[in-house]
């Protein structure tokens, strides 16, 4: 349980948001040309990092917009929030 600063609405309780998992997984441009291994890798395989992780969140009970969060999964501390399409801020 923690506070997330939505880039559009400001500080809100985490329960207003839904987690969208690992960020920056690019959807393949030509899915039909992928091998089964590559497709499985895109669809299912995750880094699931203990530590600083890049992830997507959606302000589901607010503005309903998607954005990115850099969060330490070992203590739930948020390092940065940035909008979709933006480059992650360099620490």
């Amino acid at each position: 349980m923690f506070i997330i600063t939505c880039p559009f609405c400001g500080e809100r309780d985490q329960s207003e948001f839904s987690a969208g998992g690992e960020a920056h997984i690019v959807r393949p441009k030509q899915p039909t040309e992928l091998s089964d291994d590559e497709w499985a890798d895109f669809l299912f395989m995750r880094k699931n990092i203990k530590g600083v992780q890049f992830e997507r969140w959606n302000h589901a009970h607010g503005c309903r917009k998607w954005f990115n969060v850099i969060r330490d999964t070992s203590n739930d501390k948020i390092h940065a929030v940035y909008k979709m399409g933006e480059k992650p801020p360099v620490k």
Partner: protein
Amino acid sequence: MKNNYSIISLLKNSLSYHENWQQAWRDPEPKKEYDAVIIGGGGHGLATAYYLAKKHNIKNIAVVEKGWIGGGNTGRNTTIIRSNYLWDASAGLYDHALKLWENLSQEINYNVMFSQRGVMNLAHNLQDVRDLKRRTHANRLNGIDAVWLSTEEVKKFCPIINTSPDIRYPVLGGTLQRRAGTARHDAVAWGYARGADAMGVDIIQNCEVKGIKRNGDTVEGIETNKGFIKTKKIGVVAAGHSSVIANMAGIRLPLESKPLQALVSEPVKPIIDTVVMSNAVHAYVSQSDKGELVIGAGTDAYVSYTQRGSHDVVEGTLKAILELYPIFSRMKMLRQWGGIVDICPDASPIISKTSIKGLYFNCGWGTGGFKATPGSGDLFAHTIANDEPHKLNASFNINRFVSGDLVDEHGAAAVAH
């Protein structure tokens, strides 16, 4: 060889005020090399070592554990054991475990307090009724005991449930598996540890794995805070931390790790003599032998390794508990905790070889691994010893995420995720 626990040893030790009991397992320093190393000293890992030594005659084994044995999810679950899963593959896997549970205390000479008090799953809407009835039929075709109960039969079996039709999610019936029940989770870890140790397995606690050493596509050993340990076979049974080990080995798994919470109340006199689960409203409850209500809550929806969990998840569960059991309204909760569960996209486990020779993973048990402990250890030991899965865990390979042959058990998993 260790002394057997028996009524005679109990009487004998009572004469010396129980001060001279033999140590249950040794506390050895790691050797330079083992035939197999198990990473993770929880129930599944210790059971794996036990069956490797017992059935496959591999005695030179180490179990390395970052903390203390049974201090992870083995000691954090709600101790429910059942096998009423939908698909044939899961039914085979979980019922294999349940059959081992039925004889486990005798097998390992340690009282795991296995109590077949029955597990009831409630239906709260029409779709629940259809799904649970289908599951009962599927269970019976697989030789697993299951019956459908009407609302009146639910009330008769567990009188404290509020079966009034005017609650928000009324009880429309339920299923009952009578062979299901609970066991004392700590005893499972301790019993397997004692049994494995007696056969020469080294159980090394406070030993954290820092790296997996590979030579091309073959494992050579593990780096730990107690030095390098050489081995040709590594079995990883690290639950919520499976991905952490996988990242060390340079492979990826289809897992997400999330906190799952449970809580217990103050102890009270016997009030509920079975286990009642309810997926739709997300509440399940049983009563421990000490008298505490044991309540399982849900997972947080985001990846986290914090072993805490969010308050709103507990709040949601307790709301459902109070509506279903108004009699609990003035109970005080005593303790709350979280464990990190590794969840697969199809809510089924992985007991499998990997693309690296000598590296095996037993993970992805998600919210329901405790019930499978003996079966999981038995089948994983078989997989490690023979470098091939047993027929009961053949479906639970990592490759199913490539082939698409998933075992979708979201409906039968204890916790909706």
